[in-house]
Structure formats: structure tokens, C-alpha cells
């Protein structure tokens, strides 16, 4: 044997490879291009046709942020949902499991690649927010609050996707379950939430809470401190799902499931 040492920080090697495959292949750039086209249409309709646009500038910026959030979360979720079960289906997982790197490092490396979607998406969105801004204050609020909420939700959803992917023996099942979870958590943001059940949902669903936080800060011009309770669900969701993804990854198997 050569004078090999146990690989240290192997997650960096995995992350580097995953990032190259995502951003230096067509996959990542095409997704970003499509997102950019969507934002262009929204911005054009909002900025060019004042008569048709029934939203004020703050609401328009909020709309762009909510769309950005939804797309960023969806992409991170689907990338991580494919991360393990996709390798399993493409029959490349066994080679990876045969390397001396801890399973946890595989999970962390793949999560880092999924997280990378968010900074790229938010960077693409910033020029559109700049165009739609009215005064410096809304721009500052928007570019501070959206990355934070987005980061928490992207961590939560990407980690959830990885847990599902680790457990799934089929990639199709992993993507379907993850997408269903995304829709189920995203739908309440579009519903009129009233009464105590509405409040409960607003504060416990991390997407609803995060979305509401952005709206309060950007549209209603509230301070962060006024709405800090809305941050609890996104923070908890990020911490719990990330921990679950990393812990359960130690039981990553060649087939699905978490058994022996």
C-alpha cells in the first residue's frame, strides 16, 4: 500500500466534484437562465406597464423575493432529493461507498452543492430588485432579509431532500415525495390564514413563517425585532432537518432504508 492517510475533510472533495458537475455542466446554468427569464417577465410587467400593475413597488419587490425564495428552495430540494437515490439508480453509489470516506462526509459534500443554488439565485435576483426598488431602504431590506430567510429554508429543504433520497430505493420515489413535501408546505403561503389555526400554521410552517417575515419587513416596513417570532420555525426546521440528514447519512446503505 502507498503511504495513504485517512482522507481528512473528504466532504470538501465531494463538494468540489458536485459543484463542478452542477455549475460547469449545462444543468446549473440552464436552471439559472430559466429563473432569470421568469424574473425578467415579472419585472417587465411590473416596471413597464404601470397601468396594468396593481401592486405598489414594495409589493412588487416582495413578489420577486417570494418567487426567488420558492424557486431557490425547489431547486435545492430537488438537487438533494436526487443526490443519493440518483447515484443509486445510476449505479455509481457503490463505488462511492467503497471509498474510505465517512458516510457523513458524503452527505455534507452533497448538501453543500445543493446549498450553492441559493447564493447564485439570490445574486441573479438582486439586479431585478434594484430595478424595481423605490428608494434605498426597500433595497437594503430586501437584500438583507431574503438571503437570510432563503438560506434557512434552503438548508431545511435540501436536508429534507437528502433524508428522503437516502431512504429511497428509487429516484422517482425520492423526487415525488420531496416535491409533494414542497407543495404541501408551500400551498399555505397562498391561502388566507385566519383564526387560531391560521396563526398556528403561520408560525409553525417554516415556509409560511419565512414568507410572512419577508412580507412584514419589505412591504409593511416592520423592524426585524418586531417579527422575530416568525424566524423560530425556519431556524428550527433548518437545524432539525440538517441534523437528521447528517445523522441518518451514517446509516447510508447501498439499497434504500436505514436498517442494518
Amino acid at each position: 500500500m502507498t503511504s495513504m492517510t485517512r482522507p481528512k475533510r473528504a466532504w470538501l472533495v465531494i463538494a468540489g466534484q458536485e459543484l463542478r458537475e452542477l455549475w460547469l455542466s449545462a444543468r446549473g446554468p440552464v436552471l439559472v437562465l430559466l429563473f432569470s427569464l421568469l424574473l425578467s417577465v415579472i419585472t417587465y410587467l411590473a416596471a413597464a406597464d404601470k397601468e396594468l400593475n396593481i401592486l405598489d413597488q414594495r409589493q412588487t419587490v416582495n413578489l420577486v423575493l417570494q418567487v426567488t425564495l420558492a424557486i431557490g428552495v425547489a431547486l435545492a430540494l430537488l438537487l438533494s432529493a436526487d443526490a443519493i437515490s440518483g447515484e443509486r439508480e445510476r449505479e455509481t453509489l457503490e463505488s462511492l461507498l467503497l471509498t474510505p470516506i465517512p458516510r457523513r462526509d458524503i452527505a455534507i459534500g452533497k448538501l453543500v452543492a445543493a446549498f450553492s443554488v441559493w447564493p447564485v439565485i439570490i445574486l441573479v435576483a438582486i439586479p431585478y430588485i434594484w430595478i424595481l426598488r423605490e428608494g434605498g431602504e426597500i433595497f437594503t431590506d430586501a437584500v438583507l432579509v431574503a438571503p437570510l430567510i432563503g438560506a434557512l429554508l434552503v438548508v431545511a429543504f435540501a436536508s429534507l431532500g437528502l433524508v428522503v433520497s437516502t431512504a429511497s430505493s428509487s429516484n422517482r420515489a425520492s423526487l415525488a415525495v420531496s416535491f409533494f413535501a414542497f407543495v404541501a408546505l408551500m400551498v399555505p403561503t397562498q391561502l388566507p390564514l385566519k383564526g387560531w389555526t391560521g396563526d398556528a400554521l403561520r408560525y409553525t410552517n417554516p415556509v409560511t413563517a419565512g414568507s410572512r417575515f419577508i412580507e412584514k419587513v419589505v412591504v409593511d416596513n416592520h423592524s426585524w425585532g418586531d417579527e422575530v417570532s416568525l424566524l423560530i420555525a425556519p431556524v428550527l426546521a433548518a437545524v432539525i432537518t440538517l441534523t437528521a440528514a447528517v445523522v441518518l447519512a451514517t446509516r447510508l446503505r447501498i439499497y434504500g432504508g436505514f436498517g442494518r
Partner: protein
Amino acid sequence: MTGNGTERGQGEAALQVRGLSKSYGSLKAVRDLSFEAFRGEIIGFLGPNGAGKTTAIRMLSTILPPDAGSFTLGGVAHTDAIAIRQRIGVLPESAGYPFQQTGDEFISYHGRLFGHSPARAREIGASLLQEVGLGERASSRISSYSRGMRQRLGVARTLVNEPEVLFLDEPTLGLDPAGQRQMLRLISDIARQRQTTVILSTHFLDEVEQICSRVLILKQGEVAAEGSIADIKRQTAPRAARFSVPPEMHDEALAHLAKAAGIAHAAPANSEPGSIIATFENGWMTENSRLGMNSAIRALTDAEVPILSFELEGSRLSDAFLSLTEEEPQ
């Protein structure tokens, strides 16, 4: 290529397996598997489909935990999975490849995963691709590789850590004859030059006869036979002999053979004129094979029937394999 490897018993075993078992629910995939493998030897890991070969390899490569039993590899206990993985190379039966990567990117990446620095991983990658005959295609995408090239790339990947033991699960499956020969030569070279122990799982028994020093035959998860190819062949006695005689003397030869001592019956072989299959009496060849063969040959030579060719049916590894692994009719 001929039978390769170090003689059994020389030096410390590279791999020692003791009572390894694995079940999937009520199905016992591997039962009480025990064997030893020495440095530089190539062991044929044989068995019909579902015999437990892949499960055994997955246990020995730490992909699956055994239900019972243990093994040591290079002196390392099976419970230290990371240390075991540092000492083995595995080419799984269904190995997928990232088609968008080039050959050198693929090997370098795996070199990094085994703890090599980026520069060293690239250096090793270039050297290994040269060794497996892919040097000129190193910078081509894997999607442009033929099946044989991908298999050789897979072998190169298994060598990035200079393994002590190499597990190859059906490495020649789907290859054309030239590709098969190339792969066998490569495996043989790896065992000889690197003194790597190779566990070769395959259904192609002629390959085993060409390059393996020993075989281990599994049947329904249990070891049905283990030993050198000659030992295995000896465990199953020849059942019949095929004689080729001039077509015009066919009937005469048939009559003489039918009357020869130890011959249960003689019948024309269906396909070839002048060819006769003489079936030995049950157990007779086992007890005195030399006498039995001589008796049949003498019956023809005494009658002055020229023997154009003579071959013992059942003297090949494939015959022994079938005899050891075929189910008894219910």
C-alpha cells in the same frame, strides 16, 4: 496465460474469512463462508446465479454488514470498515460511471477520495490509465468509451489505493472475446506484478481455468467445493468418454465399446459421424480411472479400430461445476 499466483500456504493470508453469514429475511444468502486467500493468488469465486457471490463480496468489502462470522484483511478486523476499504479495490458487477467526466477526472477524483493530494491523484490517474491501456483516451469523456474500455477504467479505479485484495465481480461480462482476453491479461498482470490477491467472481469457467490458482464454488450460499482446479476436477469423476473413429468403422467400434469392461453403454454422438460416447458404469471410473480408460481404449485397439481422438467427458472445470451445483431432480 496459465494458472497464476503464489502457492497456498506461503506467508500470511491476505484475507481470512471465518463463518461469514448473511440473510435477507428468511433467505439465507451466505452461510458459514470460510476461506483464506494469499498474496498474489487469483481465486475463482464461482456459483450459479443467486449462490451468494455478490453478497459475499459486498460483506468482504464492508458494503453489507455480516449477520455472523468475521474476516480479517491484511491483519485488519472487519469491524474497522474504513481501514478495510483503504486496503481493497472492488469492481462491482453493475458499476456505473459518470459519463460526463473524462477518464482522468474519474480516476483522479477517486484518488482524492482515498486521501491523495490533487497532484498525486492526477499522477496516479495518468499512470493507471496507461497501465490499463487507456492512456490515449484519458481526456475523452467516459460516455465515448466502449464497454470494454469502461471495464478497464473500472479496474484502474480499483487500483488507486494499491489494494492488497481486489474483488472483481463479473469483470468480463458483456465483453467481446478480444476484450475478455485483454481483461484477463490485465488481471493476471495485476496479481503477478503487484502481488495483489484477486477474488474473481465469474460465470466464464474457461477464464477461471486460464488465470486462477484456486476456486471456491458456492451453492445456495454455502461452499460446495474449494481447492485447486485439479482438486475440484478430481472431486467429480468423469462420466463418459468421447471417441472419434473412422466413419466406416463406427458400428464395429460401437459394438466393441459396448462390451468393454466398465462401460455401461455406448452410443453414437448425435452431431458428428464417427463419434461415439461411451458412458462409464456408475462409480467405476472413480475407483480405478486409469484401468477404466485403458479398458475402453484396449477394446478398440485390440479390434484394430483406429482412435482418431479421445476425450473424457466430465474432465473439464465446467463439468465439475455443473456436477457440484446442479439441483438434484425432485
